[in-house]
Protein backbone atom coordinates (compact mmCIF):
# COMPACT_ATOMS: atom_id res chain seq x y z
CA UNK A 1 0.00 0.00 0.00
CA UNK A 2 1.48 3.33 -0.92
CA UNK A 3 2.05 5.91 1.84
CA UNK A 4 -0.76 8.24 0.73
CA UNK A 5 -3.32 5.45 0.90
CA UNK A 6 -1.90 4.31 4.22
CA UNK A 7 -2.32 7.83 5.56
CA UNK A 8 -5.93 8.00 4.36
CA UNK A 9 -6.63 4.58 5.87
CA UNK A 10 -5.26 5.80 9.19
CA UNK A 11 -7.48 8.85 9.01
CA UNK A 12 -10.57 6.74 8.35
CA UNK A 13 -9.74 4.42 11.25
CA UNK A 14 -9.06 7.34 13.60
CA UNK A 15 -12.37 8.89 12.55
CA UNK A 16 -14.35 5.70 13.21
CA UNK A 17 -12.64 4.97 16.54
CA UNK A 18 -12.93 8.60 17.68
CA UNK A 19 -16.60 8.86 16.82
CA UNK A 20 -17.30 5.48 18.44
CA UNK A 21 -15.67 6.57 21.69
CA UNK A 22 -17.48 9.91 21.68
CA UNK A 23 -20.89 8.35 21.01
CA UNK A 24 -20.16 5.54 23.47
CA UNK A 25 -19.38 7.95 26.29
CA UNK A 26 -22.42 10.04 25.44
CA UNK A 27 -24.78 7.06 25.47
CA UNK A 28 -23.22 5.78 28.69
CA UNK A 29 -23.75 9.13 30.36
CA UNK A 30 -27.34 9.30 29.14
CA UNK A 31 -28.19 5.65 29.77
CA UNK A 32 -30.63 6.43 32.56
CA UNK A 33 -32.62 8.73 30.28
CA UNK A 34 -32.46 6.36 27.32
CA UNK A 35 -34.13 3.60 29.34
CA UNK A 36 -37.76 3.61 28.34
CA UNK A 37 -39.04 2.74 31.80
CA UNK A 38 -38.17 2.28 35.44
CA UNK A 39 -38.22 -1.23 36.81
CA UNK A 40 -39.74 -1.95 40.22
CA UNK A 41 -36.21 -2.60 41.56
CA UNK A 42 -35.32 0.99 40.75
CA UNK A 43 -37.59 1.93 43.64
CA UNK A 44 -35.34 0.16 46.13
CA UNK A 45 -31.78 -0.20 44.96
CA UNK A 46 -31.07 3.19 43.50
CA UNK A 47 -27.60 3.40 42.03
CA UNK A 48 -25.34 6.15 43.16
CA UNK A 49 -26.02 9.57 41.70
CA UNK A 50 -29.44 8.58 40.46
CA UNK A 51 -32.73 9.84 41.78
CA UNK A 52 -35.34 7.36 42.98
CA UNK A 53 -38.81 7.95 41.53
CA UNK A 54 -40.61 10.71 43.43
CA UNK A 55 -44.31 10.92 44.23
CA UNK A 56 -45.95 13.17 41.65
CA UNK A 57 -43.44 12.26 38.95
CA UNK A 58 -44.68 11.29 35.50
CA UNK A 59 -42.96 8.08 34.59
CA UNK A 60 -43.11 4.69 32.95
CA UNK A 61 -42.81 1.46 34.89
CA UNK A 62 -42.08 -1.86 33.23
CA UNK A 63 -42.45 -5.25 34.87
CA UNK A 64 -44.28 -8.54 35.00
CA UNK A 65 -47.94 -8.57 35.98
CA UNK A 66 -48.15 -10.47 39.28
CA UNK A 67 -50.28 -13.61 38.99
CA UNK A 68 -53.67 -13.18 40.64
CA UNK A 69 -53.24 -9.46 41.21
CA UNK A 70 -55.52 -8.26 38.41
CA UNK A 71 -58.60 -6.72 39.99
CA UNK A 72 -61.35 -5.44 37.74
CA UNK A 73 -64.28 -3.26 38.64
CA UNK A 74 -67.30 -5.13 37.20
CA UNK A 75 -69.19 -1.88 36.57
CA UNK A 76 -66.52 0.27 34.91
CA UNK A 77 -63.32 -0.09 32.94
CA UNK A 78 -61.25 0.49 36.04
CA UNK A 79 -58.60 -2.11 36.68
CA UNK A 80 -55.76 -2.43 39.13
CA UNK A 81 -52.86 -4.85 39.13
CA UNK A 82 -49.39 -5.23 40.54
CA UNK A 83 -46.15 -5.42 38.59
CA UNK A 84 -42.81 -6.67 39.81
CA UNK A 85 -39.44 -7.85 38.60
CA UNK A 86 -37.07 -8.99 41.33
CA UNK A 87 -37.86 -5.91 43.39
CA UNK A 88 -40.94 -4.70 45.23
CA UNK A 89 -44.44 -4.86 43.84
CA UNK A 90 -45.84 -1.68 42.37
CA UNK A 91 -49.59 -1.19 42.05
CA UNK A 92 -50.90 0.17 38.76
CA UNK A 93 -54.32 1.81 38.56
CA UNK A 94 -55.75 2.15 35.07
CA UNK A 95 -59.00 3.04 33.41
CA UNK A 96 -59.41 1.90 29.86
CA UNK A 97 -59.00 -1.03 27.53
CA UNK A 98 -55.94 -3.16 28.07
CA UNK A 99 -53.98 -4.45 25.05
CA UNK A 100 -54.78 -7.96 23.79
CA UNK A 101 -51.48 -9.34 25.00
CA UNK A 102 -52.11 -8.20 28.58
CA UNK A 103 -51.93 -11.34 30.72
CA UNK A 104 -50.86 -12.32 34.18
CA UNK A 105 -47.18 -13.17 34.11
CA UNK A 106 -46.72 -11.05 30.99
CA UNK A 107 -44.47 -8.02 30.78
CA UNK A 108 -46.13 -4.61 30.54
CA UNK A 109 -45.06 -0.97 30.43
CA UNK A 110 -47.36 1.53 32.14
CA UNK A 111 -47.07 5.28 31.76
CA UNK A 112 -48.60 7.65 34.26
CA UNK A 113 -48.17 9.58 37.45
CA UNK A 114 -46.82 8.21 40.70
CA UNK A 115 -49.51 9.05 43.24
CA UNK A 116 -48.05 7.15 46.19
CA UNK A 117 -44.55 5.72 46.76
CA UNK A 118 -45.64 2.37 45.27
CA UNK A 119 -48.72 3.30 43.23
CA UNK A 120 -48.91 4.55 39.66
CA UNK A 121 -52.01 6.03 38.13
CA UNK A 122 -51.54 4.98 34.53
CA UNK A 123 -52.78 6.81 31.46
CA UNK A 124 -51.44 4.18 29.09
CA UNK A 125 -50.66 0.48 29.46
CA UNK A 126 -48.59 -1.23 26.77
CA UNK A 127 -47.92 -4.96 26.52
CA UNK A 128 -44.36 -6.14 26.14
CA UNK A 129 -43.83 -9.53 24.58
CA UNK A 130 -40.72 -11.66 24.59
CA UNK A 131 -38.68 -12.86 21.66
CA UNK A 132 -40.03 -16.42 21.77
CA UNK A 133 -42.34 -17.64 19.06
CA UNK A 134 -43.90 -21.10 19.00
CA UNK A 135 -47.12 -22.83 18.03
CA UNK A 136 -49.70 -23.21 20.84
CA UNK A 137 -49.29 -27.00 21.11
CA UNK A 138 -45.56 -26.66 21.64
CA UNK A 139 -46.04 -23.92 24.21
CA UNK A 140 -48.38 -26.14 26.18
CA UNK A 141 -45.92 -29.02 26.08
CA UNK A 142 -42.86 -26.97 26.93
CA UNK A 143 -44.24 -24.56 29.46
CA UNK A 144 -47.11 -26.67 30.74
CA UNK A 145 -49.37 -23.65 30.77
CA UNK A 146 -52.22 -22.52 28.68
CA UNK A 147 -51.96 -18.80 28.31
CA UNK A 148 -55.34 -17.60 29.39
CA UNK A 149 -56.29 -14.12 28.39
CA UNK A 150 -57.90 -12.40 31.37
CA UNK A 151 -59.70 -10.12 28.93
CA UNK A 152 -61.82 -13.09 27.93
CA UNK A 153 -64.05 -15.32 30.05
CA UNK A 154 -62.21 -18.38 31.35
CA UNK A 155 -64.52 -20.95 29.69
CA UNK A 156 -63.24 -19.93 26.30
CA UNK A 157 -59.87 -21.08 27.49
CA UNK A 158 -57.57 -21.10 24.53
CA UNK A 159 -56.52 -17.82 23.11
CA UNK A 160 -56.90 -17.29 19.40
Amino acid at each position, binding site marked *: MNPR*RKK*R*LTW*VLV*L*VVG*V*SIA*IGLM*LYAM*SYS*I*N*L*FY*TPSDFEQVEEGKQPPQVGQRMRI*GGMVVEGSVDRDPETLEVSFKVTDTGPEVTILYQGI*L*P*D*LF*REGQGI*VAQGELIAPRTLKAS*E*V*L*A*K*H*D*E*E*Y*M*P*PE*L*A*EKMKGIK*HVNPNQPAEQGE*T*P
Partner: protein
Amino acid sequence: MWRWLHPYAKPEATYRLVDKLLPWFAGLTLISLLVGMVWGLAFAPADYQQGDSYRIIYIHVPAAIFSMGAYFGMAICGAIALIWQIKTAEWALPAIAPVGAAMTAIALFTGAIWGKPMWGTWWVWDARLTSELILLFLYIGVMALYAAFDDARTGAKAASILAIVGVVNLPIIHYSVEWWNTLHQGATITKFERPSIATSMLWPLLISLLGFMLLTATLVLMRYKNQLLKHELNRPWAQAELALDSRESAEETR
Protein backbone atom coordinates in the same frame (compact mmCIF):
# COMPACT_ATOMS: atom_id res chain seq x y z
CA MET B 1 -3.73 -11.09 -2.72
CA TRP B 2 -6.23 -8.54 -3.95
CA ARG B 3 -4.97 -8.64 -7.51
CA TRP B 4 -8.17 -10.27 -8.81
CA LEU B 5 -10.08 -7.18 -7.65
CA HIS B 6 -8.00 -4.75 -9.67
CA PRO B 7 -9.89 -5.01 -12.99
CA TYR B 8 -13.07 -3.81 -11.23
CA ALA B 9 -11.69 -0.34 -10.74
CA LYS B 10 -12.51 -0.08 -14.44
CA PRO B 11 -16.20 0.69 -15.00
CA GLU B 12 -16.45 -1.48 -18.07
CA ALA B 13 -15.22 -4.63 -16.31
CA THR B 14 -17.54 -3.95 -13.39
CA TYR B 15 -20.45 -3.45 -15.76
CA ARG B 16 -19.78 -6.79 -17.45
CA LEU B 17 -19.65 -8.54 -14.06
CA VAL B 18 -22.85 -6.92 -12.81
CA ASP B 19 -24.57 -7.71 -16.10
CA LYS B 20 -23.60 -11.36 -15.74
CA LEU B 21 -24.65 -11.63 -12.09
CA LEU B 22 -27.94 -9.76 -12.32
CA PRO B 23 -30.17 -12.45 -13.93
CA TRP B 24 -29.00 -15.03 -11.36
CA PHE B 25 -29.72 -12.72 -8.47
CA ALA B 26 -33.09 -11.74 -9.90
CA GLY B 27 -34.15 -15.33 -10.51
CA LEU B 28 -33.09 -16.57 -7.08
CA THR B 29 -34.76 -13.56 -5.45
CA LEU B 30 -38.05 -14.41 -7.09
CA ILE B 31 -37.91 -18.05 -5.98
CA SER B 32 -36.77 -17.53 -2.39
CA LEU B 33 -39.03 -14.56 -1.78
CA LEU B 34 -42.05 -16.43 -3.15
CA VAL B 35 -41.32 -19.54 -1.07
CA GLY B 36 -40.50 -17.55 2.07
CA MET B 37 -43.54 -15.28 1.88
CA VAL B 38 -46.09 -17.97 1.03
CA TRP B 39 -44.72 -20.40 3.60
CA GLY B 40 -44.40 -17.77 6.30
CA LEU B 41 -47.57 -15.82 5.70
CA ALA B 42 -49.89 -18.72 4.87
CA PHE B 43 -48.54 -22.07 6.10
CA ALA B 44 -46.38 -21.54 9.18
CA PRO B 45 -48.24 -22.26 12.44
CA ALA B 46 -49.78 -19.40 14.42
CA ASP B 47 -48.02 -18.18 17.54
CA TYR B 48 -49.17 -19.30 21.01
CA GLN B 49 -49.55 -15.73 22.22
CA GLN B 50 -49.78 -13.47 19.22
CA GLY B 51 -51.85 -15.68 16.96
CA ASP B 52 -51.57 -14.74 13.32
CA SER B 53 -50.31 -11.22 13.98
CA TYR B 54 -46.77 -12.48 14.50
CA ARG B 55 -46.57 -13.36 10.78
CA ILE B 56 -45.41 -9.87 10.00
CA ILE B 57 -42.07 -11.07 11.39
CA TYR B 58 -41.46 -12.61 7.96
CA ILE B 59 -41.26 -9.13 6.48
CA HIS B 60 -40.20 -7.05 9.45
CA VAL B 61 -37.11 -8.96 10.55
CA PRO B 62 -35.56 -9.49 7.08
CA ALA B 63 -36.17 -5.84 6.15
CA ALA B 64 -34.62 -4.65 9.41
CA ILE B 65 -31.58 -6.92 9.11
CA PHE B 66 -30.85 -5.90 5.55
CA SER B 67 -31.47 -2.23 6.23
CA MET B 68 -28.41 -2.63 8.44
CA GLY B 69 -26.60 -4.98 6.05
CA ALA B 70 -27.04 -2.57 3.15
CA TYR B 71 -25.72 0.26 5.31
CA PHE B 72 -22.62 -1.72 6.20
CA GLY B 73 -22.03 -2.47 2.54
CA MET B 74 -22.46 1.18 1.66
CA ALA B 75 -19.98 2.21 4.37
CA ILE B 76 -17.41 -0.27 3.05
CA CYS B 77 -17.83 1.21 -0.44
CA GLY B 78 -17.42 4.64 1.13
CA ALA B 79 -14.19 3.57 2.84
CA ILE B 80 -12.83 2.13 -0.42
CA ALA B 81 -13.82 5.32 -2.21
CA LEU B 82 -12.01 7.44 0.37
CA ILE B 83 -8.85 5.38 0.78
CA TRP B 84 -8.23 4.07 -2.72
CA GLN B 85 -10.22 6.79 -4.50
CA ILE B 86 -11.83 4.37 -6.89
CA LYS B 87 -14.69 5.86 -8.89
CA THR B 88 -16.61 2.61 -9.18
CA ALA B 89 -16.77 2.44 -5.37
CA GLU B 90 -18.05 6.01 -5.18
CA TRP B 91 -20.91 5.20 -7.54
CA ALA B 92 -22.02 2.35 -5.29
CA LEU B 93 -23.19 4.87 -2.67
CA PRO B 94 -26.12 6.33 -4.65
CA ALA B 95 -26.91 2.77 -5.82
CA ILE B 96 -27.19 1.38 -2.27
CA ALA B 97 -28.60 4.31 -0.28
CA PRO B 98 -32.19 4.43 -1.65
CA VAL B 99 -32.53 0.63 -1.45
CA GLY B 100 -31.31 0.62 2.14
CA ALA B 101 -33.58 3.54 2.97
CA ALA B 102 -36.53 1.62 1.53
CA MET B 103 -35.66 -1.42 3.67
CA THR B 104 -35.44 0.80 6.75
CA ALA B 105 -38.79 2.37 5.92
CA ILE B 106 -40.34 -1.09 5.47
CA ALA B 107 -38.91 -2.21 8.82
CA LEU B 108 -40.25 0.90 10.59
CA PHE B 109 -43.64 0.68 8.90
CA THR B 110 -44.21 -3.04 9.49
CA GLY B 111 -42.95 -2.56 13.04
CA ALA B 112 -45.57 0.10 13.61
CA ILE B 113 -48.43 -2.01 12.27
CA TRP B 114 -47.18 -4.92 14.36
CA GLY B 115 -46.84 -2.75 17.43
CA LYS B 116 -50.37 -1.39 17.39
CA PRO B 117 -52.24 -4.69 17.93
CA MET B 118 -49.56 -6.32 20.11
CA TRP B 119 -48.07 -3.58 22.27
CA GLY B 120 -50.98 -1.20 22.00
CA THR B 121 -49.10 1.64 20.31
CA TRP B 122 -47.76 2.51 16.88
CA TRP B 123 -44.61 4.09 18.19
CA VAL B 124 -42.62 4.61 21.37
CA TRP B 125 -39.37 6.46 21.66
CA ASP B 126 -37.45 3.47 22.93
CA ALA B 127 -33.83 2.89 22.01
CA ARG B 128 -34.45 0.28 19.28
CA LEU B 129 -37.11 2.24 17.42
CA THR B 130 -35.27 5.53 17.72
CA SER B 131 -31.93 4.16 16.53
CA GLU B 132 -33.60 2.52 13.53
CA LEU B 133 -35.23 5.87 12.71
CA ILE B 134 -31.78 7.47 12.90
CA LEU B 135 -30.61 4.88 10.37
CA LEU B 136 -33.29 6.15 7.98
CA PHE B 137 -32.06 9.71 8.51
CA LEU B 138 -28.48 8.59 7.88
CA TYR B 139 -29.52 7.08 4.55
CA ILE B 140 -31.35 10.26 3.61
CA GLY B 141 -28.33 12.28 4.73
CA VAL B 142 -25.98 10.23 2.55
CA MET B 143 -28.27 10.70 -0.46
CA ALA B 144 -28.63 14.42 0.14
CA LEU B 145 -24.94 14.99 0.74
CA TYR B 146 -23.98 13.02 -2.35
CA ALA B 147 -26.14 15.29 -4.46
CA ALA B 148 -25.34 18.54 -2.65
CA PHE B 149 -22.14 19.51 -4.44
CA ASP B 150 -21.58 20.81 -7.94
CA ASP B 151 -18.52 18.62 -8.15
CA ALA B 152 -19.73 15.02 -8.01
CA ARG B 153 -16.47 13.71 -6.52
CA THR B 154 -16.58 16.17 -3.63
CA GLY B 155 -20.14 15.04 -2.97
CA ALA B 156 -19.08 11.41 -3.07
CA LYS B 157 -16.29 12.11 -0.59
CA ALA B 158 -18.60 13.92 1.83
CA ALA B 159 -21.23 11.19 1.57
CA SER B 160 -18.55 8.53 2.13
CA ILE B 161 -17.44 10.20 5.36
CA LEU B 162 -21.02 10.38 6.61
CA ALA B 163 -21.60 6.73 5.64
CA ILE B 164 -18.49 5.63 7.54
CA VAL B 165 -19.29 7.68 10.65
CA GLY B 166 -22.85 6.33 10.62
CA VAL B 167 -21.59 2.77 11.05
CA VAL B 168 -21.41 3.55 14.76
CA ASN B 169 -25.21 3.38 14.74
CA LEU B 170 -25.29 -0.28 13.64
CA PRO B 171 -24.10 -1.88 16.91
CA ILE B 172 -26.32 0.60 18.75
CA ILE B 173 -29.38 -0.67 16.85
CA HIS B 174 -28.41 -4.28 17.43
CA TYR B 175 -27.58 -4.03 21.13
CA SER B 176 -30.14 -1.36 22.04
CA VAL B 177 -32.49 -4.05 23.38
CA GLU B 178 -29.76 -5.38 25.67
CA TRP B 179 -28.15 -2.17 26.83
CA TRP B 180 -31.33 -0.37 27.78
CA ASN B 181 -34.89 -1.05 28.89
CA THR B 182 -36.98 -1.04 25.74
CA LEU B 183 -40.50 -1.98 24.76
CA HIS B 184 -39.04 -3.89 21.83
CA GLN B 185 -38.20 -7.48 22.72
CA GLY B 186 -34.72 -8.99 22.47
CA ALA B 187 -33.15 -10.70 19.48
CA THR B 188 -34.82 -13.92 18.30
CA ILE B 189 -32.33 -15.21 15.75
CA THR B 190 -29.40 -12.79 15.54
CA LYS B 191 -27.65 -14.09 18.63
CA PHE B 192 -25.16 -16.79 19.49
CA GLU B 193 -27.58 -19.02 21.40
CA ARG B 194 -30.25 -21.19 19.85
CA PRO B 195 -32.92 -19.11 18.08
CA SER B 196 -35.96 -18.62 20.33
CA ILE B 197 -38.41 -19.57 17.63
CA ALA B 198 -39.92 -22.97 16.91
CA THR B 199 -38.30 -24.83 14.01
CA SER B 200 -41.54 -24.86 12.01
CA MET B 201 -41.50 -21.04 12.13
CA LEU B 202 -37.74 -20.65 11.78
CA TRP B 203 -37.39 -22.24 8.34
CA PRO B 204 -39.70 -19.86 6.48
CA LEU B 205 -38.01 -17.00 8.33
CA LEU B 206 -34.58 -18.11 7.12
CA ILE B 207 -35.86 -18.40 3.56
CA SER B 208 -37.42 -14.94 3.82
CA LEU B 209 -34.08 -13.64 5.07
CA LEU B 210 -32.38 -15.14 2.02
CA GLY B 211 -35.10 -13.66 -0.18
CA PHE B 212 -34.67 -10.17 1.25
CA MET B 213 -30.89 -10.41 1.01
CA LEU B 214 -31.13 -11.32 -2.66
CA LEU B 215 -33.80 -8.68 -3.24
CA THR B 216 -31.57 -6.00 -1.74
CA ALA B 217 -28.64 -7.22 -3.85
CA THR B 218 -30.72 -7.35 -7.03
CA LEU B 219 -32.09 -3.84 -6.58
CA VAL B 220 -28.62 -2.51 -5.76
CA LEU B 221 -27.12 -4.21 -8.81
CA MET B 222 -29.84 -2.79 -11.07
CA ARG B 223 -29.22 0.70 -9.75
CA TYR B 224 -25.47 0.24 -9.88
CA LYS B 225 -25.64 -0.81 -13.52
CA ASN B 226 -27.46 2.43 -14.29
CA GLN B 227 -24.91 4.43 -12.32
CA LEU B 228 -22.07 2.88 -14.32
CA LEU B 229 -23.77 3.65 -17.63
CA LYS B 230 -24.72 7.16 -16.57
CA HIS B 231 -21.19 8.13 -15.55
CA GLU B 232 -19.58 6.53 -18.59
CA LEU B 233 -22.18 7.67 -21.09
CA ASN B 234 -19.65 9.17 -23.47
CA ARG B 235 -17.26 6.22 -23.45
CA PRO B 236 -17.30 3.91 -26.48
CA TRP B 237 -18.14 0.79 -24.44
CA ALA B 238 -21.22 2.44 -22.94
CA GLN B 239 -22.30 3.72 -26.35
CA ALA B 240 -21.88 0.23 -27.79
CA GLU B 241 -23.85 -1.23 -24.89
CA LEU B 242 -26.70 1.22 -25.37
CA ALA B 243 -26.76 0.69 -29.13
CA LEU B 244 -26.90 -3.07 -28.56
CA ASP B 245 -29.76 -2.65 -26.06
CA SER B 246 -31.82 -0.47 -28.38
CA ARG B 247 -31.25 -2.81 -31.32
CA GLU B 248 -32.45 -5.76 -29.20
CA SER B 249 -35.55 -3.98 -28.04
CA ALA B 250 -36.29 -2.84 -31.61
CA GLU B 251 -36.11 -6.43 -32.76
CA GLU B 252 -38.39 -7.54 -29.98
CA THR B 253 -41.07 -5.03 -30.91
CA ARG B 254 -40.84 -5.89 -34.58
